[in-house]
């Protein structure tokens, strides 16, 4: 469903790549990508969708290059910018996007009701709170029962009770998924998913979310390391059951790296 080879993205005028030589292949797997703000997660998702300038490498969805793919309804995302197609209230936008994705407008309306988002219906997307935009984005992305779901920080600014319901809804979905977050504690909501870390544009993994309590980060290159994380602060190894610092206690990946460095 998704095949990413040596993908790099460097924005015009910048010397530092936002995404560096990422390799990723998904059949029906679901992956949570954890990384701090600015690590390149959103840019990676945009590049996979063909919405960011790919400097080198390739990204293919369902066998088609993302720069030329057309009408592939099985790919969906929650990125807010892709829903700014027309200046109309949410009430009018929902059925338009449901039909554009080959989905059922009535089913989408029911989900909006389940997530208590009726208050958004008479407003335009830019008038909504960040949390409401995120929730609506996910519901729109799910409206067609996608084969490949690309979700950028779907829990950002979403209240606790709806986080749980949203996580349960995502667990019910079939097909491949790539979900980015900067919150390590969210990993416990995604039992059975694969896990990857993103740091300074590099993607390392895969690991298992079920093993997150057993993952450690160690300074330098360690024998039997599951993966090597190269950063501007030095080289670190991701190891299982032993190491310098446990991942589970970290508030963020940045804090962990800074502690070790």
């Amino acid at each position, binding site marked *: 469903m998704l095949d990413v080879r040596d993908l790099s993205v460097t924005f015009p005028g910048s010397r530092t790549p936002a995404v560096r030589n990422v390799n990723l292949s998904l059949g029906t797997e679901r992956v949570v990508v954890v990384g701090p703000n600015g690590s390149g997660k959103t840019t990676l998702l*945009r590049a996979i*969708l*063909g*919405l*960011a*300038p790919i400097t080198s490498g390739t990204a293919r969805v369902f066998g088609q290059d*993302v720069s030329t*793919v*057309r*009408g*592939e*309804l099985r*790919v*969906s*995302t929650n*990125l807010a*910018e*892709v*829903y*700014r*197609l*027309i*200046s*109309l209230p949410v009430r*009018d936008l929902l059925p*338009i*996007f449901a*039909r*554009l*994705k*080959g989905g059922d407008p009535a089913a989408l309306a029911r989900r909006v009701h389940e997530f208590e988002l009726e208050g958004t219906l008479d407003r335009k997307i830019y008038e909504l709170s960040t949390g409401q935009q995120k929730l609506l984005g996910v519901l729109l992305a799910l409206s067609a029962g996608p084969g490949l779901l690309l979700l950028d920080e779907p829990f950002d600014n979403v209240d606790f009770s709806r986080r749980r319901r949203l996580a349960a809804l995502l667990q019910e979905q079939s097909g491949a998924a790539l979900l980015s977050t900067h919150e390590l504690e969210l990993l416990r909501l995604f039992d059975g998913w694969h896990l990857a870390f993103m740091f300074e544009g590099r993607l390392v993994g895969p690991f298992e979310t079920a093993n997150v309590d057993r993952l450690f980060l160690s300074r330098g290159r360690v024998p039997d390391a599951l993966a090597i994380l190269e950063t501007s602060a030095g080289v670190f190894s991701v190891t299982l059951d032993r190491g310098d610092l446990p991942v589970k206690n970290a508030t963020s990946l940045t804090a962990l790296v800074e502690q070790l460095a």
Partner: protein
Amino acid sequence: MNLAPAYSKALLRNETLWFWGGVFMLFWIVIGAFVESQGLSLAGTALRQYAASWYAVVVLLSLSMLAVAIANSLTYGSAALAYAFRYTRLTPNGYLGSVLVASAIMGFFLGFLILGGTVAVFGARFHASLVPSNIAGLVGVALVAGVFFMALAAILMLVVINYVGLRSTSLVGFVPLMLAYAFGLGQVFLPLPAWLLYGSPYNDITSLLYQGFCGAAAPVSGAGPATLAWPILVAALLAWSVALSAGATFLLRRIRARQVEEGRQV
């Protein structure tokens, strides 16, 4: 998928467009009727021709403003369109067709508003009944002109989005409007030759609107025949509209996702 109803709804509900494309344009009609006519002795045919000139130029300005406003929306929707063409049922042809239909509908209503304003304001000023000679023709020209302006503005904006960068949008966006002032007022005040009046789509529009309003062929004050032939004007305007629409479709297929913030100057 046909988004024309949705885009038409968004345009027809847009109060800002109604003000700048409609109400503000009526201000120029008032200027033409009450200020610029000072010292002129107008009645009968001369009055109809004078009112027709103002009507034609003001419709030109209104439609170009409408086109600029709609084309500017492309900068806000570049990522949405790049995504929609890849991962939804929306096609570049479907999108452009929907927007062209919506802008033609809006152009029809704005043209009708300005027509009513011209008849009412000039009629009140000169105590005359100014019923247009060919209302169906005026409607037809307004519809095609709406398509032409939308395609022109879309091409300019898509060149900026795809190849130049959004910092130029706020400047390039004014090009259709500036050309409307140049060609529209140029035809009124300068001796433009017939070949230019036929070849310029702006002057095709004003000349056809002039003829539709007053019933007489638009005069040529520069080199060439004394008046312009409407079949040639129609053919030229249609050719421009088709060519620009094809160009806009070509560029739309290659639309590049841009972040709106890129357009900030400071």
